[in-house]
């Protein structure tokens, strides 16, 4: 329910003033998601996989994670997509740990690291903040997720 609090807080004039926001007096309220934009989105790539191939070949660090109780863009969807990249495995599938519990499972491919986050919904850091922070830490370091 937290986006409801955001809808109130970010429409407060004193909050907008502190943020230097809405200085031009936008003719609509601040909202978490713009339905107008969403309904009129008329340029979308059918697949991002070609871009992944470009980024991987450039040597960029690429990590993909998935909260495994999201049914909107679920883990199965992500796995089907990644498998199309046909990447070689560097570190085979294993459970990763955070604070002595399984945080999820992961596999390190040549050029891409994939990790699931156990029990997390669509907004992974909202539902599993500790696990998400561990994921972020490993990503920044460019190291595989902890095995214990």
């Amino acid at each position, binding site marked *: 329910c937290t986006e409801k609090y955001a809808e109130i807080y970010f429409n407060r004039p004193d909050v907008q003033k502190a943020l230097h926001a809405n200085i031009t007096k936008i003719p609509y309220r601040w909202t978490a998601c713009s339905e107008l934009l969403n309904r009129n989105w008329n340029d979308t790539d059918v697949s991002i996989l070609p871009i992944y191939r470009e980024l991987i070949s450039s040597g960029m660090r690429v990590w993909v994670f998935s909260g495994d109780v999201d049914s909107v863009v679920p883990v199965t*969807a992500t796995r089907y997509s990644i498998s199309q990249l046909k990447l070689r495995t560097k570190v085979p599938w294993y459970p990763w740990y955070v604070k002595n519990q399984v945080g999820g499972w992961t596999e390190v491919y040549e050029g891409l690291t994939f990790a699931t986050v156990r029990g997390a919904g669509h907004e992974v850091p909202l*539902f599993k903040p500790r696990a998400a922070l561990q994921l972020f830490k490993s990503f920044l370091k*460019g190291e595989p997720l902890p095995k214990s």
Partner: protein
Amino acid sequence: GGSQPDDGAAADRIWALPGQPEVSFEQFSGYVTVNRAAGRALFYWLTEASIQPLSKPLVIWLNGGPGCSSIAYGASEEIGPFRINNKASGLVPNKFSWNSLANLLFLETPAGVGFSYTNRSSDLLNTGDRRTAKDSLEFLVRWLNRFPWYKTRDIFITGESYAGHYVPQLAREILAYNAKSSHPIHLKGIMVGNAVTDNYYDNLGTVTYWWSHAMISDKTYHELINTCDFSRQKESNECESLYTYAMDKEFGNIDQYNIYAPPCN
């Protein structure tokens, strides 16, 4: 008194947000003009790292939708240093904030999201991936001019959901920019979560997830698989009816974004 879109960093400093607890890090927010002719300006909120910000990378967070705000979700619900209390009267600390490890730049993109705006109203009716990537690159180039001490820092881009489009697309724009520029942007990596990636495999994987997690019946699963063309942008009426049936009659009253959590009523 509020900064103008192209003021310097000092004008963007946030002294304190209403109801904010005392913190040790600096914050900045404001507008960066990305298209002068159309009057398009993107809004950002930078929360610097809580420990040794000068030695930490810059991480840009984008939310998806399309059309959703990284300040609403990334900053206020997920990785930012504050949570809004349930009266919306103030902020409480998030002890798992990612700004313990990095400087976090929440970007509202494209124009029309959150506080980001355009003076050309048609921009709101014909937007999409391409303009979002180009405007976001323009934002980053200009933002780094406003905050030049970040120019030499490692940069990462992260996000979730439809940002599965924005994040790789912006990374690709940066690679193209770097190929032509004598001052390349130090982009080191990207990370995306529950990311929209490929129409066909996303849709096939979603329906398969529903079935394998016992959210839909065998009958509905087989009908969806046999009826829908998952590679299409717009599905047939017959397929749409099956989706509606699955969601209305079989899912029940759940939070589709977290199937085992109580729904927000």
